[in-house]
């Protein structure tokens, strides 16, 4: 097994809901509620799930953009769970993030040149203007834009170009690890594939590790080596991409995959419909959190919170049973 660059152990991120007479805490939004996963050096780890499943919070907490409530985050062997202030700065150089909305993630009053050189200034990575300029030129060509784009402002670019700038800015500090938070979901399909190809190429050239957060299973299938499926703040299944898509083991993964329409009318089948909505992360059902929507749920599911277990080499699920979906036969794990 390859070396893990990022390890997230039993991570919790609860946001308090304030209210009441004295502003006391009435409850928590349990955005991340005991998630465990790891990203190995050089791989692309996909994190998928529906809105509100905590995938974005997980990404941000892993980068220490927020303070986790509980749990442990190891980056390259170092425990970074409770680093604060200045101690985080060296970490910021090694970890970066690319956001969903490239326009909003760029300061509208900053030229591309300034956006690219600012991180270098912050971390003292370029000696003098000339070197910064040279590095900026290098970056801009790396992401497929022209040198004369450096003098422009974000609003002068198309969506795809803006995302290229955001990627270039992330690369400005030569990081090892980049969280890609829905990097293509605000883009058009024909442009989406350009960005995906760019990200793949950059990973190869610069030996990057990606955490690719997405709700789009089709995209995830094309770019990720391994995938973590999240549901209500927990990773419910983790597996190599191909085994996950060929034979998902968690009933949620199974339902999720079956509800994606396939762009081929010949393969038109009745979409499997998972009834109900995703429950709110405030009132998480006890026991297995997927139980209320699960067609295989038993009495035990309400009582026991299933631990993560390996069903097959490299494929782990948080479910009490190993279910054969064809025969609906359950084997206790």
């Amino acid at each position: 097994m390859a070396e893990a660059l990022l390890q997230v152990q039993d991570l919790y991120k609860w946001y308090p809901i304030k209210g009441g007479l004295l502003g006391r805490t009435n409850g928590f939004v349990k955005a991340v509620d005991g998630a465990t996963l790891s990203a190995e050096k050089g791989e692309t780890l996909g994190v998928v799930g529906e809105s509100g499943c905590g995938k974005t919070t997980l990404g941000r907490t892993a980068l220490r953009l927020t303070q986790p409530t509980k749990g442990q985050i190891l980056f390259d062997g170092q425990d970074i769970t409770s680093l604060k202030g200045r101690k985080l700065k060296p970490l910021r150089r090694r970890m970066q993030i690319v956001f969903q909305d490239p326009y909003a993630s760029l300061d509208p009053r900053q030229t591309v040149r300034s956006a690219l050189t600012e991180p270098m200034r912050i971390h003292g990575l370029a000696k003098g203007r000339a070197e910064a300029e040279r590095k900026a030129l290098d970056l801009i060509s790396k992401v497929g834009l022209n040198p004369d784009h450096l003098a422009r402002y974000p609003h002068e670019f198309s969506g795809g170009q803006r995302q290229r700038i955001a990627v270039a800015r992330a690369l400005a500090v030569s990081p090892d690890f980049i969280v890609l938070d829905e990097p293509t979901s605000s883009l058009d399909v024909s442009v989406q594939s350009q960005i995906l190809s760019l990200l793949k190429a950059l990973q190869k050239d610069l030996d990057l590790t990606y955490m690719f957060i997405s709700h789009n299973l089709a995209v995830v299938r094309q770019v990720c080596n391994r995938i973590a499926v999240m549901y209500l703040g927990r990773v419910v299944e983790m597996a190599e991409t191909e085994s996950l898509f060929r034979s998902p083991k968690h009933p949620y993964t199974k339902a999720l995959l079956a509800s994606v329409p396939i762009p081929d009318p010949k393969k038109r089948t009745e979409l499997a419909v998972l009834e109900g909505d995703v429950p709110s992360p405030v009132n998480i059902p006890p026991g297995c959190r997927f139980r209320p929507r699960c067609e295989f749920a038993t009495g035990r599911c309400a009582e026991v919170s299933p631990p993560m277990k390996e069903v097959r080499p490299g494929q782990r699920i948080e479910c009490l049973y190993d279910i054969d979906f064809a025969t609906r036969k359950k084997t206790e794990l």
Partner: protein
Amino acid sequence: MKLYEYVLRRLALLVFVLLALAALIFYITRGLLPPAYALTQYVTPRMTSAERLILAQNLGVATSSCPSYAAFATSAKGCIVPLWGQFFGWLKTVLSGNWGYTVLPGYVAGTETTWNVFWVRFPYTAELAIGGTILTIAIAIPLGIVSATHANKAPDHASRVVAISGYSIPQFWFGYILQVVFVLYVALNGRGLLPVGGPLPTSCAICFANPGSVVTRTGFPVIDAILSGNFPYFWDSIVGLILPTVTLALTTIGALTRILRSSMVDALHQDYILLARSKGLRDRVVVYRHALRNALLPAITIAGLILAFLLGGVVVIEYVFDFPGVGQAAVLASTSFDLNFLELYVLVTAVIIVLTNLVVDVLYAKLDPRIRY
């Protein structure tokens, strides 16, 4: 959180704000002046030095160990209670309703209390402010709606000019202009059409100038006239309010119109308006049911600010129109150094504004289902 809990919390905050404001006002009117000033409105001319010392001690300004009034008056060491201690003494005194004797011109020294003077004058101001509020709402809301529904067309430009001119006009000047106009140029049989001074006009073409028999029960001229069944007096009180309220409302009409216009324009560009139109609803329904409900929300939140505008405006209006309310007295109080009157005025105004804001916030919560306390 329940609504009553929210109200309780807001009331606690309100008490805090009023206390802090009291401290600020106390600091300005007492802390910045020599301690002997504190006695000004409590002494009577015939008081002896010994009595004055006792008074100073009772008011919590002089220490109990202070040997003589002379020592107190010269701020001798150990004679003066520290400022924060004075504050509590002051608070105790004024909260019991003891605001001393008025030193306003027109009153014999040491005969009439500040408290009485304030409350006799207050109803006049209240009528003026209420009239101003009604006029503001009655004009500003339709104007704002017309402006927004005809955004960037002639009616919008016209209403923009009216609104901006409204809050660019010096109120004191406009008051005089109205007087000039209604005395010199708009007159019937040599008498100005509308009364230009005081709540009870004596020379105007359309008023009766007949105070008649009115029993003062509430202190509010209009209400007392109704209670006494004296129609001429009622009519005169109303007519007397016209010019002052128009002048008063001028500034606030502009402010409210502009805010309503912008929130309405904003609402009209929202997606839910497109949906409402796509449903084939009539324009009237789209504008009033769908847009206005949403647009009113930001507009009513500034009600507190508007009220502060109005209550500040009365000072000028009453001065210009020789209107016997508290605002006119404030200017007099400043020249005659009646600090207690000003303190009382500030605190009463603050209570009104803060309570209004509370009511507005509760109303907001009622109108906007998204807000849950």
